[in-house]
């Protein structure tokens, strides 16, 4: 019985290794960044999220079968100033008590050639969902694949900066989201 179990386990292990493309790819958090740039009266102000998690199943040869999901811990925002970080946790901004996480769920992935892809999906922040198109460029070096890109969202569509802060002449509606993700286990391009 024990022997059989071991054999089955070994088989399963071998199978998993033989099919790397079907396995989930892993994001290396220490080498990955998700950040944003908002403009306050014309002044670019950068922020970063220190905590996020991703489930990536992606084979460059079969982008149509890809599934990419992100969960970003909004309380982990870093804005370079403690008082600003305390402020954005409040209901007018991220309202992290009620909505601790932002999520992204891909729907389709299109290959554009030369390591470039277009990921369509749903971005959910503060209970509001919007369809977004995310351009992604892949670069591979050894076992590591770096996926980077940027896209723009409208903060008011997610009620980020509500109340007194709705005025877009103070804080621009457009917020640029930037990311650089280090992935392991991605098949060669």
């Amino acid at each position, binding site marked *: 019985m024990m022997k059989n179990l071991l054999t089955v386990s070994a088989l399963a292990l071998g199978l998993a290794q033989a099919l790397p493309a079907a396995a989930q790819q892993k994001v290396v958090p220490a080498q990955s960044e998700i950040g944003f740039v908002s403009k*306050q*009266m*014309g*002044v*670019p*102000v*950068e922020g970063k999220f220190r905590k996020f998690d991703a489930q990536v199943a992606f084979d460059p040869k079969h982008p149509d079968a890809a599934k990419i999901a992100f969960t970003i811990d909004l309380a982990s925002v870093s804005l*370079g*100033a403690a*008082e*600003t970080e305390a*402020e954005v946790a409040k209901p007018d901004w991220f309202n992290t008590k009620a909505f601790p996480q932002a999520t992204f769920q891909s729907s389709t992935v299109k290959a554009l050639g030369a390591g470039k892809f277009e990921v369509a999906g749903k971005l959910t922040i503060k209970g509001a969902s919007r369809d977004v198109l995310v351009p992604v460029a892949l670069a591979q070096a050894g076992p590591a694949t770096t996926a980077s890109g940027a896209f723009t969202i409208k903060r008011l569509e997610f009620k980020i900066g509500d109340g*007194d*802060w709705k*005025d877009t002449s*103070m*804080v621009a509606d457009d917020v640029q989201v930037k990311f650089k993700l280090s992935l392991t286990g991605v098949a060669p391009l």
Partner: protein
Amino acid sequence: MTPPAGRYTLVAICLHWLLAVAIVATFCVGLYMSDLPFSPQRLKLFNWHKWAGVTILALSAVRLLWRLTHRPPPDLPMPAWQQRAAHGTHHLLYLLFFAVPLVGWAYSASAGFPIVLFGVLPLPSFVSVDKEMAEVYKAWHAYLAYGLAALVLMHVAAAVKHQVVDRDGLLSRMWPAPRGARP
């Protein structure tokens, strides 16, 4: 254009009063805004204060060039120590016209907020982002601004003393109206 003898040039007079109003207003906004809680009002005032500071810096450069190329009227008769005190005050005032905005600019840039003049023109940051240095610049921006305020008070007190006690017409040299209409 040659000014009447004993008067500053019209350009010098205009720059003097324009900068007087700008510096006093910007100082008062600076005092008021620093204790405000995080709000659109605070963000707005901080940016206005920075734009005003950079404008004062630029106008002070124009003023210094004008001062270096145009002789002011000769000193009125007064004790030598008063002349020295007046000239010393003027030198320090000019120094602070540059130092206060420049250190404020360094404070903003080192705190991670580059100045975008009037919300459209990004200005270069001549220091790198460094939170510890930002605190140092912040403190010096305040010390120098208080120093400037003290010098301005001395300057005004001396002018009032000349006008009210000495009655020597010193103020008319910097007064915008023609000579006949002395204050």
